[in-house]
């Protein structure tokens, strides 16, 4: 009974040994054949790893924006300056912002934003940077800690105070290793007192350096620097994740009403949901990753054809051996198994080398700053699964050809 059970298993093991030896005998040939699968598996594994790394990086960037964010953009084509004085529809006004703050309960904090590019002069140096007019809540919303000093207050906002919080890069450019807090920086010839310095945040979405900026009260930016009356956009933080869409709808309704948009007219503003950005970016990178992985997978097919080719050669070369084995009592399935195991061994070994190589590529890519590709267990399982399937699929025909040989003809084969 036990014999009956163990015997087939033992045979598979023994047959595998025969197959292994046959492969070792033709080292060069086996290696060349394996190359197709090796390259295919290595590309699939490393592309998946790089894809994951990219996705992780983008997710990090999206979440570095802060959490539960909505951004309202004005759609008005007219420049703010040109339409100064007119409170008409098409512009996002500070009154709109106030209305949102008053009426939408789930809005935890918000910050209207005005930006400009200007020369900052300090410490005898000159540096062109982004000046961002924001509200005091801005740093909370962006989850952006201060390295030293403090953020400006509501009072300073109301009085359009000439105070500034400086980004780490800008500080380095202007002050080198010196502490900037307490220093004066001149923007458009106007002196600002630096009251705080931001922690470094790195590149944002799109790769712009978030650390190269000076944050000032938006009132100061509008009144003293640009003369604009309307913010370009408003960043809002919603109190919880599940209130995001409700808040979005509420704000939309409120703004439509305030801008007197009748039914059928399009919104004259855009509301972007942080989660939507993340989801969109995610799905794009995922699609791209699978697409590239699939293309790399095609080389597995080519590798499989290589295996089939070499197995057919091997079967022909060993015709007499096959005849002899059949004559001394090998069953057709023994022969089938022998050659099938040979092709599966070849493809699995190639798969293993391919996985190792893919690991190597992924490890090398971690040297890129802020990039953390990682090989997933899933992709390894898939790589081995595909290697196995390739071995079975492309090994089956040659193996069956061997198993169905006529022993008499095989024994006489020259």
């Amino acid at each position: 009974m036990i014999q009956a059970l163990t015997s087939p298993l033992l045979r598979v093991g023994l047959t595998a040994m025969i197959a292994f030896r046959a492969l070792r005998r033709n080292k060069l040939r086996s290696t060349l054949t394996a190359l197709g699968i090796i390259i295919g598996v290595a590309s699939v594994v490393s592309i998946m790893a790089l894809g994951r790394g990219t996705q992780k990086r983008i997710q990090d960037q999206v979440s570095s924006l802060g959490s539960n964010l909505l951004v309202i953009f004005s759609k008005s084509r007219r420049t703010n300056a040109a339409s100064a004085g007119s409170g008409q529809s098409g512009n996002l006004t500070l009154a709109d912002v106030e209305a949102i703050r008053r009426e939408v309960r789930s809005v935890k904090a918000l910050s209207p934003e005005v930006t400009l590019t200007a020369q900052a002069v300090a410490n005898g140096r000159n540096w062109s940077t982004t000046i961002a007019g924001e509200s005091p809540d801005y740093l909370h919303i962006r989850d952006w800690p201060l390295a030293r000093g403090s953020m400006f207050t509501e009072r300073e906002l109301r009085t359009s105070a000439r105070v500034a919080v400086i980004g780490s890069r800008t500080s380095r450019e202007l002050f080198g290793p010196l502490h900037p807090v307490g220093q004066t920086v001149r923007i458009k010839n106007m002196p600002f007192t630096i009251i705080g310095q931001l922690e470094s945040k790195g590149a944002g979405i799109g790769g712009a350096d978030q650390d190269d900026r000076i944050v000032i009260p938006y009132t100061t930016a509008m009144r003293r620097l640009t003369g604009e009356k309307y913010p370009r956009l408003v960043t809002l933080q919603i109190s919880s994740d599940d209130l995001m869409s409700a808040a979005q709808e509420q704000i939309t309704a409120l703004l439509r009403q305030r801008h007197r948009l009748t039914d059928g007219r399009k919104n004259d503003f855009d509301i972007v949901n942080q989660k939507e950005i993340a989801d969109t970016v995610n799905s794009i990178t995922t699609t791209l990753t699978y697409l590239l992985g699939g293309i790399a997978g095609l080389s597995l097919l080519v590798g499989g054809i290589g295996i089939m080719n070499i197995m057919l050669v091997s079967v022909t070369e060993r015709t007499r051996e096959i005849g002899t084995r059949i004559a001394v009592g090998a069953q057709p399935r023994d022969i089938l198994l022998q050659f099938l195991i040979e092709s599966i061994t070849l493809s699995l070994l190639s798969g293993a080398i391919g996985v190792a190589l893919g690991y190597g590529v992924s490890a090398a890519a971690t040297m890129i700053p802020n990039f953390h590709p990682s090989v997933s267990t899933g992709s390894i399982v898939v790589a081995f699964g595909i290697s196995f399937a390739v071995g079975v699929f492309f090994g089956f025909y040659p193996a069956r050809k061997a198993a169905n040989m006529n022993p008499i003809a095989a024994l006489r084969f020259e």
Partner: protein
Amino acid sequence: MNASVIELDNLQKIYRTGDVEVRAVNGVSLRIERGDFVAIMGSSGSGKSTLMNMLGCLDQPTDGQYLLDGVDVARLGRSELSRLRNLKIGFVFQSFNLLSRTSACENVELPLFYTNPHVPLRDRRQRAIEALKKVGLGERLYNHPNQLSGGQQQRVAIARALVNNPELVLADEPTGNLDTRTSIEVMGLFQALNDAGITVIMVTHELDIAAYCKRIIVMRDGRIIRDEVNAARIFANDQRAVLDASEQHASLS
């Protein structure tokens, strides 16, 4: 178990290639008893190999009946025939058919590898070594075929044929590729096997090889034209002595 080992009744093998029909074996009826030692002779193309292939269950007859040990072989499927060959029949070929780059020992183990129920590695090794000792190759267990002479290779093949204690050993021109002295040695081995009770059937076209057998069958055009007991049987030991003497004579003169 007093049935004949082999019973053939009007056995036929017809090959058709296009419109041409070749009656390779054309109505052979024959009984071979246990312990017999038969030589099948005949000119080239007379159907000897075709007959042997059918006796060895490597080929199925077109018509007629073949009983091996009382079993009608025509009723068996491919894998049952494999099993039958494995357990009951040993083959020796003219061109040895050893696996290259495989030691003598492993070559001899080959049939045991396919025996069901499974023969454990240790037993396989041990039986292979015994068989190789029987054919006088106890010192060459781990040599590969390309490290052995033709005679030695054929002896490995004979060891392979007898490792699974077959009832029947079939040899198609086993001395065809060997010189006189090694032919004598190989025939000596067959005679020893036969003395141990194994039925041996061999094809040869040389009369002096057939002379070692107990019974000589002659074929022509797929039929048996003569079948008689070998009255002038010779023995390998004597022949070896004769050869030694004549070689000595040759080197003296």
